[in-house]
């Protein structure tokens, strides 16, 4: 492995309070005073303070990583607390970076916390990453993952990667100095709509606790220069089967970024590259959203109040019907089953389609238009918009 060059750890002093705090580290020969000084001298940047960032940041702070940068532009929401344990009920509504900073400093006031309340973009990524030794990818979307990867390759910095979906997680260290990068494994993103986001696909709340903690272990090992980092390997975790697997990753000589034949020598437009926006979506990423004919929830309410005859089609999955439901819905057909049930949907009637927040229903609207329907509209914002605008007693999710 390539040794990480931490700036002058010998110049770092540990106070008596810190020596007591880190005593369980100091008595291990693999860490000791020299290792603890390295941890204090190290600068680590976490991109994202959500599911993965929560355990990661708390353990990095507890371990004594001296400078921790955090990038996020979101605010804490109640629906985050099922897994984002760095935040709390008392910080709902606050910027995540402020909430995270408060918890980090409560755990360890010796840490220098640097906050960036901005989205990571091609314009700011190189400048944000530059001062740091290690970048940790705890983001939630493909454009930002490719951006983090390419910026790390261009700056020759290790990228500690973690990713989760429902019950499955992936961890790897993409170290451009010695091993393959994210693009060697995933040269291109899947097309929009194929992979649902956690916001729509869901995630077991404990899962990021496992994956983010594994990322934290890899960061600490890289700083200390001990053990075998997850370079050239990817760890796969399946929580349902309670199974870890490891696969080998190899450098792809045709990778577009970095040596030996770079065709990408600067950061590109990653939203364009991936065909989707660089933030987690409350809907399945859909090419059709904003393109197909649409109506607002207010217009739907007016149609119902005036007694208009139309089909109100719910295309969510059956377990979502139990969370919330619009009583005027006439049909419940999950998106994946729509083609089998076309016979139930008369082409001679108006059809309004809704889902949770408008993505899946946009796709169904497109499907129906492609099958000869002409009187079909997508309900913008889905049942969540309906709940906040029309029927405030309904829960949102």
């Amino acid at each position: 492995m390539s040794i990480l060059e931490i700036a002058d750890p010998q110049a770092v002093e540990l106070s008596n309070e810190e020596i007591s705090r880190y005593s369980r580290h100091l008595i291990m020969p693999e860490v000791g005073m020299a290792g603890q000084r390295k941890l204090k001298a190290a600068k680590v940047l976490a991109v994202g303070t959500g599911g993965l960032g929560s355990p990661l940041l708390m353990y990095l702070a507890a371990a004594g990583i001296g400078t921790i940068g955090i990038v996020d532009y979101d605010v804490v929401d109640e629906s985050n607390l099922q897994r984002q344990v760095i935040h709390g009920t008392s910080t709902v509504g606050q910027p995540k970076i402020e909430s995270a900073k408060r918890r980090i400093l409560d755990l360890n006031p010796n840490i220098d916390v640097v906050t960036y309340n901005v989205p990571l973009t091609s314009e700011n990524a190189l400048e944000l990453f530059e001062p740091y030794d290690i970048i940790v990818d705890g983001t939630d979307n493909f454009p930002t993952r490719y951006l983090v990867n390419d910026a790390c390759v261009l700056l020759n910095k290790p990228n500690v990667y973690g990713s989760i979906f429902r019950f499955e997680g992936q961890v790897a260290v993409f170290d451009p100095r010695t091993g393959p990068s994210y693009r060697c494994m995933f040269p291109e993103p899947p097309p929009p709509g194929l992979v649902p986001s956690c916001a729509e696909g869901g995630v077991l709340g404990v899962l990021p606790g496992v994956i983010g903690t594994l990322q934290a272990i890899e960061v600490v090992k890289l700083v200390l220069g001990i053990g075998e980092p997850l370079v050239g390997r990817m760890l796969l975790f399946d929580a349902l089967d309670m199974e870890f697997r490891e696969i080998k990753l190899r450098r792809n000589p045709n990778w577009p970024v970095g040596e030996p034949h770079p065709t990408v020598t600067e950061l590109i437009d990653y939203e364009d590259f991936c065909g989707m926006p660089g933030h987690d979506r409350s809907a399945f990423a859909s090419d059709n959203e904003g393109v197909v004919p649409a109506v607002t929830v207010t217009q739907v309410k007016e149609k119902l109040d005036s007694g208009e005859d139309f089909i109100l089609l719910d295309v969510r999955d059956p377990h979502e019907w139990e969370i919330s439901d619009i009583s005027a819905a006439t049909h419940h057909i999950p998106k994946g089953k729509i083609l089998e049930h076309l016979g139930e949907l008369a082409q001679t009637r108006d059809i309004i389609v809704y889902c949770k927040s408008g993505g899946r229903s946009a796709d169904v609207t497109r499907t129906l238009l492609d099958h000869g329907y002409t009187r079909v509209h997508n309900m913008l914002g889905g049942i969540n918009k309906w709940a906040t605008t029309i029927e405030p007693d309904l829960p949102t999710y």
Partner: protein
Amino acid sequence: MASIRIPTPLRPYAGGTAEVVVSGTTVDEALKDLIAQHPELEQHLFNNGELRSFVNIFLGEEDIRHLDGRETAIEEDTELLIIPSIAGGRA
């Protein structure tokens, strides 16, 4: 019979199952049998007959791209893994 491990994002297109038993002596034959059993998977794995670039097939720890690709021979007890791109984590 060999088997193919289906990752969570693709399970809705494979009848919800995590593992599909397939026949064949090569990765290609195994994938064709998989598609025959679960036709909905085809568009997620293939594009004009080629494996989509974001679809990673592993035999044990090895990417089949570093073996003999779709012509890689498989045994009766081979387990193939489909490794998906997933992106969740911050939200």
